């Protein structure tokens, strides 16, 4: 949308009046709407003297937004945030995330009992035994059993099943081999998933995996209703067919428009679920979200506000800046041998020459937090030991060491690739200026549409490119693992035996303290040698109506309606 928010009120009124003159013939049409909601204009006038606007008061049920039409409601097939947000309300894993991550240092505190009322871990940390609660039920009243989990996980792991996130289950013993075997050779007996009885589930892992409890709360690990899946096939997720085991049922879904949720009466914790009905509006455009919020149609903006509008909202009591477990960074392509970027000193020079604080404060209105490391600083139970500094002097030295700059070779022009987005453009332009002034390096900005950007990244057809990563679980591994040799997310051509070895050692390490040390060492290698330049840590800038209680900050932006309520 156009940037009218900065024009003065008089100018806007003038423009609108000009339009009104042109629309005289349409005045009659407008009357209908005017008669319908006369009170809103009064509200709008009042709001100027009040606190701007007050949201949610007009909505009948709890209303929030997802930023895209969910691609699927099948938890086995989903990958995106909008799908995940709906899935978290409809389904429940063995464990569930607590309402907040704030103030939690021990990753163990992040999880609460879900379908499993408790679990035991074997001494070597590799076998988990989950004890399912007796009263866990599907929305049709049937009990949720360990066989449901075995069925669901087997379904995902079935060779050829189109589950995008199937690799999440590879922590389970034999799972990867089973998934990658030929259909006729796949042997389920080799996979470490057992159900000794209806209420016990045993899972054997490849390694002691401290974040496994959190994985069980990830949608890929959710149970799916065997009965509905077998009966309706791909259509089991339609509102008329779907059976869920979470706090809510889906009552209707209109593509591109809305999803309606209703509290499930069979949910084991139904008595503590305060919100009876919820409406999820699908609004991809962030400006449209803020407009809907201003028109008192939403209790929660759901997605982060557009940067261009932050200034209008920043002082409003409904505005919140929540932490997010994510990092915005630059990828550096190290695979081209003739490129100066193959030299670690050049990469270090670029990192030293990046003034993250001024970029965040001056260019991005202070919305995010300058990244002083790669793994976000709000990761419970982990603290980076390496910091990335802004130091132009060191930057120049580093470049000189690589044989470029004064007295050395001329630095060839480098391209900086980013996908179309106002934010990315601002960041890229700022970095272009910083590298030019601090190092004299010429940067050419290359802007591409999303899918082409993805292809270029995938094909290593770039020099430097923007990137972002939001953690899948609260463990540094979710950030570090992607840079191991050959990982599908590496996309930089970088490979380090030492780094890979450290990750392997961390995987096998049962002692949490030692494990953290190993991961810190790996992060140091990645940041000092590696193919990445951290820029900032994400935050989530949202609007939440003051009528809403229980919507606490969560670093993975997971918010369960079951914890929330609306004040009268």
């Amino acid at each position, binding site marked *: 949308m156009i940037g009218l928010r900065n024009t003065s009120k008089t100018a806007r009124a003038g423009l609108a009046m000009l339009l009104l003159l042109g629309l005289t013939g349409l005045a009659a049409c407008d009357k209908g709407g005017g008669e*319908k909601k006369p009170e809103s204009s009064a509200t709008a006038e009042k709001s100027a003297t009040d606190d701007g606007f007050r949201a949610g008061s007009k909505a009948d049920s709890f209303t929030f937004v997802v930023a895209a039409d969910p691609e699927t409601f099948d938890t086995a097939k989903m990958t995106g945030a909008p799908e995940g947000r709906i899935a978290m309300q409809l389904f429940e894993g063995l464990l569930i995330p607590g309402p907040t991550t704030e103030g939690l240092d021990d990753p163990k505190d992040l999880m609460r009992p879900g379908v499993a009322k408790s679990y035991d871990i074997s001494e070597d940390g590799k076998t988990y035994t989950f004890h399912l609660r007796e009263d866990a039920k599907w929305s049709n009243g049937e009990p949720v059993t360990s066989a449901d989990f075995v069925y669901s996980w087997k379904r995902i792991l079935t060779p050829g099943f189109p589950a995008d996130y199937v690799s999440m289950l590879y922590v389970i013993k034999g799972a990867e081999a089973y998934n990658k075997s030929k259909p006729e050779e796949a042997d389920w007996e080799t996979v470490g998933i057992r159900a000794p009885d209806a209420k016990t589930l045993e899972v054997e892992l490849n390694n002691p995996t401290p974040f496994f409890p959190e994985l069980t709360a990830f949608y890929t690990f959710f149970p799916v209703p065997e009965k509905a899946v077998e009966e309706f096939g791909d259509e089991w997720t339609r509102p008329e067919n779907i059976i869920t085991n979470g706090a809510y049922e889906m009552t209707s879904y209109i593509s591109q428009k809305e999803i309606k949720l209703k509290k499930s009466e069979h949910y084991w914790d139904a008595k503590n679920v305060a919100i009876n009905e919820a409406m999820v509006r699908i609004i991809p455009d962030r400006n449209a979200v803020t407009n809907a919020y201003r028109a008192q149609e939403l209790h929660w903006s759901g997605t982060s506000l557009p940067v261009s509008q932050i200034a209008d909202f920043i002082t409003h009591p409904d505005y919140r800046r929540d932490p997010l477990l994510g990092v915005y960074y630059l990828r550096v392509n190290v695979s081209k041998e003739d490129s100066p970027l193959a030299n670690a000193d050049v990469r270090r020079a670029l990192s030293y020459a990046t003034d993250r604080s001024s970029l965040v404060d001056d260019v991005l209105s202070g919305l995010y937090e300058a990244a002083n490391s790669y793994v976000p600083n709000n990761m419970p139970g982990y603290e980076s030991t390496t910091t990335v500094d802004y130091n132009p002097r060191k930057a120049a030295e580093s470049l000189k060491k690589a044989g470029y700059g004064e007295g050395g070779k001329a630095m060839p022009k480098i391209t900086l690739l980013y996908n179309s987005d106002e934010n990315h453009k601002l960041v890229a332009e700022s970095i272009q200026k910083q590298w030019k002034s601090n190092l004299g390096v010429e940067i050419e900005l290359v802007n591409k549409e999303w899918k082409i950007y993805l292809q270029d990244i995938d094909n290593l057809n770039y020099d430097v490119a923007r990137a972002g990563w939001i953690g899948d679980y609260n463990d540094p591994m979710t950030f570090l693992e992607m840079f191991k040799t050959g990982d599908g997310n590496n996309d930089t051509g970088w490979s380090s035996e030492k780094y890979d070895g450290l990750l392997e050692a961390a995987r096998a390490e049962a002692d949490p303290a030692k494990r953290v040390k190993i991961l810190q060492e790996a992060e140091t290698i990645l940041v000092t040698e590696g193919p990445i330049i951290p820029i900032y840590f994400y935050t989530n800038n949202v609007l939440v109506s003051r009528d809403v209680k229980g919507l606490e900050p969560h670093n993975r932006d997971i918010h369960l309606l079951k914890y929330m309520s609306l004040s009268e």
Partner: protein
Amino acid sequence: MSRFILKRLIGSVFVLLTIVTLALWITRMAPSNPCLKERATNTCGCIAVNKLDRPVFPVYTSVPLEPVEACDAWEPASEVTLGPIHILTSGWGDTQYAHYMIPLLTSFDLGQSMKTDRGVGETLWAALPYTLQLGLQALFVALLIGVPAGLYAGLRQNTMADYSTMTLAMIGVSIPNFVLGPLLIMFFALDLGWFRPNGWDSWVDSVLPSITLGLYYAAYIARLTRGGMLEIIRKDFIRTARAKGLTEHAVVVAHAMRGAILPVVSYMGPAVAALLAGSVVVEEIFNLPGVGKLFVRAALNRDYNMVLGTVILYSTVLVFLNLLVDILYTVIDPRVSYD
């Protein structure tokens, strides 16, 4: 007349087939593919399900997605190397074209969306009513404003009334809907609170989008009608009508108007098609769950089947409307005959 209609209908089928074939080829030519995501995922599953490891046409292969090599890739019938060009061949049956066209022609099955787990047909069917209603309402707005304004200006040529009406029309044509839409939202939805800023739950919610979409066409129709009126009002038969002593009202309504709106009628076909296709921007601005928004998302996501579905829908509407306009022409203008 019926022979003409039949001939045109058969011709239309060929036109549509050509459009689908070209569209299919072009979608596959676009860089990147539907299976590529930000995070490394199970690309092989996506490729296999969508048959992207097949050649597009028998002697043409565009796709070779990189990860295909790791998946169970399609085996070419033969490989031909002509200098720098390397061609893989296959039978017709094993092509993406056949996989798409056979279900389409035999059961009018538009296939599955490659992005969502829903059918293209049902998704389009759910979105179509919004786009149709929006388009028709916008057309109504356009005609309701455009025709009277054009007639009014045409009958008062070179007067203040003519100039001011045409100036407004010029403004109407000049304001793009991505400017008008947000302005209307700001004033009527956010400041006055008369309408909702976006979404579509009742008829009232469609007022602002209809105006946004229709106003441009109103202005254009006003100019067309004015031109038609100016031309017709100078004709001999109008002079005769006036000489007979008919009232000015009778002359305009009974004689001049039919001729004056002829240019508008011939503009109707393209206008309706443009209104439906033009709703893309308006649907985005007002967040309406219509076909236009689907099309944009599908193109950006390289959702080949969804793109083809919308292309088929739009081109069918366009072809059908053009036919309708030709028929309508014979009704309004007795001089036109196709027999």
